[in-house]
């Protein structure tokens, strides 16, 4: 599999074309926006957090294949998870997409999210993959400032 086809593999294209959990949710407790000035990607994360668990989630946005697929995959991955688990997932995901390319990517415990490991080979695209995660984190933290990937990552 070439790096390019690894990056744009079918699962990703599928989530890009048919993003999951993009419909507004009825009740929400937390939300946040994210921008990636590089691509012009915008993402909105809306959460219903009940008893420390992500009971419902909606992620919407305009973006490139990577950020859209990442948003969609994230929404599936976090649903029903506790905030601790989400935090751990964030760390693991981050570690995977920023891991050095000369060793196998650390994909443990990431499940389906591992399809985004190919982003490692495209440093300039890593922000696309992490944008929804940053917005998620900011939503959970209850911050009202839109997050951005501008200032490094």
């Amino acid at each position, binding site marked *: 599999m070439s790096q*390019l086809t690894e990056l*744009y593999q*079918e699962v990703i294209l599928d989530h890009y074309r048919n993003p999951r959990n993009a419909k507004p949710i009825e009740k929400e407790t937390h939300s946040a926006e994210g921008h990636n000035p590089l691509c*012009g990607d*915008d993402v909105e994360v809306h959460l219903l957090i009940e008893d420390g668990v992500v009971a419902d989630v909606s992620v919407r946005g305009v973006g*490139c*294949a*990577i950020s859209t697929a990442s948003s969609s995959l994230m929404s599936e991955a976090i649903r029903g998870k506790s905030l601790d688990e989400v935090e751990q997932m964030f760390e693991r995901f981050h570690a995977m997409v920023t891991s050095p390319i000369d060793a196998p990517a650390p994909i443990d415990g990431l499940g389906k999210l591992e399809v985004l490991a190919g982003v490692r080979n*495209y440093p300039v*695209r890593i922000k696309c993959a992490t944008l929804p995660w940053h917005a998620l984190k900011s939503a959970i933290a209850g911050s009202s400032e839109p997050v951005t990937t501008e200032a490094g990552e």
Partner: protein
Amino acid sequence: MTSVRDAVSFDVERIRRDFPILGKGIAYLDNAATTQKPQRVIDRITRFYREQNGNVHRGVHDLSVMATREYEGARQRIAKDINAKSEREIVFVRGTTEAINLVAQSFVRPKLKQGSRVLITAMEHHSNIVPWQAICGETGAKLDVAPIDDNGDVVLEAFDRLVRKGPVIASFASVSNALGTVNPIKEMIEMCKSNGVPTLIDGAQSVPHTRVDVRDIDCDFFAFSSHKAFGPTGIGALYGREELLNAMQPYQYGGDMILYVSFEHTEYAPSPARFEAGTPHIAGAIGMAEAIDYVREIGDFRLHENRLIDSAVQRLHEIDGVRLVGMPKRRMGVVSFLLDGVHPHDVGTILNESGVAIRAGHHCAQPLMHRFDIPGTCRASFAFYNNEAEVDALIAGVRKAKEVFSQ
């Protein structure tokens, strides 16, 4: 270097050899972002540092005298190239952005009050939007935006109407960096002049392709960047009419821009010193002038460039699923497009894998993107050293992107 030759004999393959970065397997089609440098310009910078380096002005020793002569000589060279009346009309700045900020702060801001107006167009680069927003916001002035049509041309009647409202300045690009639109600046300046409205032309995207005659177009200010015109980074020029410059407030304060300093009182020097506080980018100015010399000597490349652009437009247009963004009456340097179902950023990544460097995104023209209701475009932008083989590579890359996304 070669002497002036006519358009037919413009030999792009020969010219390419002057640019060390070309021919290394990258089809560089991101010239609107920054251009590559001929070896001659690089050598000139090297020579300055190896043989002529000293601080300018006020030195009695040979290195300082030499550096001053070369630096001021560069100013004269640029003045002559754009047909300014005098080298005192050329202020060295970091680039177009700083030039526009300078005019905004030193010329326009002191004139703004509640209800004043500033006029730009809907296709401006952020550098020609945000400085005006900032000073309008501070003073209660209004920023008027002349609309463009679906082809990406300014609606001249609307522009004229806004000119008649008497803005403190009308500031607009000669060529759009996002669409390639060539604005009819002479006509637009004429509208401004007949209403007594001062003009600032953002020349960042025309200077790399065509020579400007500031007295012919009769603008009040003209701004451009060296790095977009085959010269070094960190330097650019602001042309301004001398009488306007000398009536303006300084921009930055410090050494060299003053005549006399005491703790009670300071007198400012006339232009250009007034606007060049501190040690300038001496090597940059010299390299910038060298780039102009180079470009003036390689012959007339307009036909070559036009053919290349026409070919790119034509061939992109033929690809099913490609939509061109902007079909202006006259185009220079830039082709913006979208590929159905593929985000520009993904097109950019796939083209890069194919060895083609284009830009994807909003091109620092977000309001223009909103106008077309798109998040961004793919932008291929050309310089005289590009060739048809690079258009081939572009086309092949776009087809490849289509293929990757049609799984």
